[in-house]
């Protein structure tokens, strides 16, 4: 079978199965905590407006945050019970987030949900509104509202929908388990998105380190119209949107452009499963699979309610194994560091990775010896060693000319650098400064 890939990239934690060995054989298990704290700004776009007050009683699936603006999405209660607090709380973002805390009564009372029963018979023009009503945003990490992604501006023709099941990020196995355990939901979600956009081709792309998932998806695709599985080489960042498009379709997204410029929409497999639930059963997005791994007693793939605190998720895995040094929301390559375990998981938290103090210790930077390994590794074709010099010295105009904005912040350069230089961090800082400037 042909295996697709892109130029550049690295093999992080290669000798240790990308850190996935601890959880990839473990079936998903549901864990429900005593209380959840649901932020109103989980998605990219204007934060939702809270609709409940302290003391209200809510059911699962009840809208507790109203969508604001064109990219806004509603937020739903993920447990039934009593609202104990509505207020600002510091989450992972720069500013404190408006959060609704709900005490779980474990009655698991649902609001009434009405779906279309079958994705193939659901009216095509009702699919995107159903996705919006279910509050679905990109579950691979970027949290881009899915209804906005599936409503391309007129003039852009979409020919292919790519489902991203690469899961190239270290430690994470949540998408792997999802594809293995419920492949039918993933294909249903893909078909729903294809019908909504009127697209004839859907490809599910999976890295070759998940042969069981490839097998399961291929079986689920049999007999479904226009759906196929593409096998990718295992390499980081194979799941980067632009790298994935390049590998599967051979098309290159232009600098500063979007996937829709080359006729492609990329969705995460988790997002597809959520779309299937929204269209078939009319159920909103209230839970997701999260890999909790690293320095915890019992690394697992948990089905967690949105808004579960990191501390509760870790206690669901038997607690910490030793003193935690760093907690990542996401994998260790692109994840964000959490200040402590009091933050909530969001719709995009695909993993909670705990590192020990020793693993988390940062290394001393040494001078660049111009070996050029970062240039070989860069999947965007940049010259990181040169760009870092420009970014650190403050010459951002020249850095823009040398395409710092095309950096996807995958961190391959920092990982491969023998002098342990903070390359990707300096580009992130430069991109933030440029964003502030405009």
């Amino acid at each position, binding site marked *: 079978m042909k295996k697709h890939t892109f130029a550049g990239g690295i093999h992080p934690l290669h000798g240790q199965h990308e850190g996935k060995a601890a959880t990839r054989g473990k079936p998903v298990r549901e864990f429900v905590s005593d209380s959840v704290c649901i932020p109103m700004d989980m998605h990219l776009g204007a934060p939702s407006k809270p609709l409940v007050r302290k003391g209200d009683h809510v059911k699962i699936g009840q809208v507790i945050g109203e969508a604001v603006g064109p990219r806004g999405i509603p937020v739903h209660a993920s447990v039934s019970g009593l609202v104990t607090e509505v207020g600002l709380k510091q989450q*992972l973002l*720069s500013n*404190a987030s408006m959060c609704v805390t709900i005490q779980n009564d474990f009655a698991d009372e649902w609001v009434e949900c009405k779906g279309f029963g079958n994705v193939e018979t659901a009216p095509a023009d009702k699919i995107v509104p159903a996705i919006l009503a279910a509050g679905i945003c990109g579950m691979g990490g970027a949290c881009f509202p899915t209804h906005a992604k599936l409503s391309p501006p007129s003039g852009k023709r979409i020919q292919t929908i790519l489902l991203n099941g690469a899961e190239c990020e270290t430690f994470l196995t949540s998408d792997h388990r999802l594809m293995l355990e419920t492949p039918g939901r993933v294909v249903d979600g893909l078909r729903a998105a294809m019908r909504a956009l009127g697209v004839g081709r859907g490809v599910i792309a999976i890295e070759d380190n998940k042969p069981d998932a490839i097998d399961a998806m291929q079986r689920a695709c049999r007999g479904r119209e226009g759906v196929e599985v593409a096998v990718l080489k295992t390499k980081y960042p194979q799941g980067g949107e632009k790298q994935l498009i390049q590998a599967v379709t051979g098309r290159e997204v232009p600098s500063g452009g979007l996937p829709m410029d080359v006729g492609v929409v990329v969705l995460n497999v988790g997002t597809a499963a959520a779309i299937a639930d929204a269209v078939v059963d009319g159920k909103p997005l209230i839970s997701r699979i999260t890999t909790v791994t690293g320095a915890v007693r019992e690394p697992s793939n948990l089905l967690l309610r949105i808004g579960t605190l990191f501390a509760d998720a870790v206690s669901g895995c038997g607690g910490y194994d030793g003193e935690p040094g760093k907690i990542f929301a996401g994998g260790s390559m692109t994840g964000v560091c959490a*200040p*402590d375990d009091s933050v909530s998981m969001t719709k995009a938290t695909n993993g909670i990775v705990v590192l020990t103090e020793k693993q988390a210790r940062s290394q001393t930077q040494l001078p660049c010896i111009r070996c050029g390994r970062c240039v070989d590794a860069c999947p965007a074709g940049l010259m990181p060693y040169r760009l870092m010099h420009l970014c650190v010295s*403050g010459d951002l105009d020249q850095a823009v000319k040398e395409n710092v904005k095309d950096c996807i912040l995958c961190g391959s350069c920092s990982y491969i650098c023998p002098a342990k230089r903070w390359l990707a*961090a300096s580009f992130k*800082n430069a991109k*933030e400064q440029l964003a*502030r400037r405009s």
Partner: protein
Amino acid sequence: MNFTAILYAALALGGLGVLFGAVLSFADKKFAVPVDDRIPRVREALPGANCGACGYAGCDALAAAIVSGDARPDDCPVGGAKCAKAISEIMGVETPQEEEPLVAKVICQGEVGVSKHRYDYDGFPSCQMASSMAGGPKKCPYACVGLGDCVQVCKFDAIKVVNGLAVVDEQKCTACGLCAKVCPRHSIRLSPRSATVMVHCQNRDSARQAREECMKACIACRRCVKECKYDAITVDDGFAYIDPEKCTRCGACVKVCPMGCIKMLEHH
């Protein structure tokens, strides 16, 4: 030795030199672009640090803009009144009104041990980056992050980070304002040099939360407002502000502030 060959070579090269010289001097006169002689003179009057605080690429660009009328004679924030006066004389316009000289002041006292800690930041040394990570390493969302983005942009070596807090050397500061622009927390404000009595806090949170965040936070208790005989202090947005025009530097408010966030500094 063949002297004639040397002579011919010297004559040929010399002749070419004379010929090209003549062509160049003709072209210089014929195709000369008239330059306003005021540009080099204005450039001479500017400080010449090329800091870019005026918004132009450097002093040359500002000089050209002043002469062409795109910029005003007092647009150089570094040169101050003296520079504006000299440029106005060159340009033959009225000297702009002399303003109170400004200086950059850090509106925070949250040094290590004073401001409460949220987490240890051990990444890329940038305030912008640290403050975008879960609200920054200090609990107060209005505090100086102390990783020196302002130090990096200062062209005059006037800012240092001491004990996790930016400190301005008022002797060296030229009030170019680059530090105030780059600070992600807006912790640096350009204030008149004579405004020595200031509230060094701009925490907008409730009193209880502010106290949880920092030991020297303004809790908007309004004791300074009651104490001030000159109506110079106002409390909006959860923190006190002293109007430098009304303040007489009597120091009464400094004594009553329970949190120690009003300070009286030496006037340089």
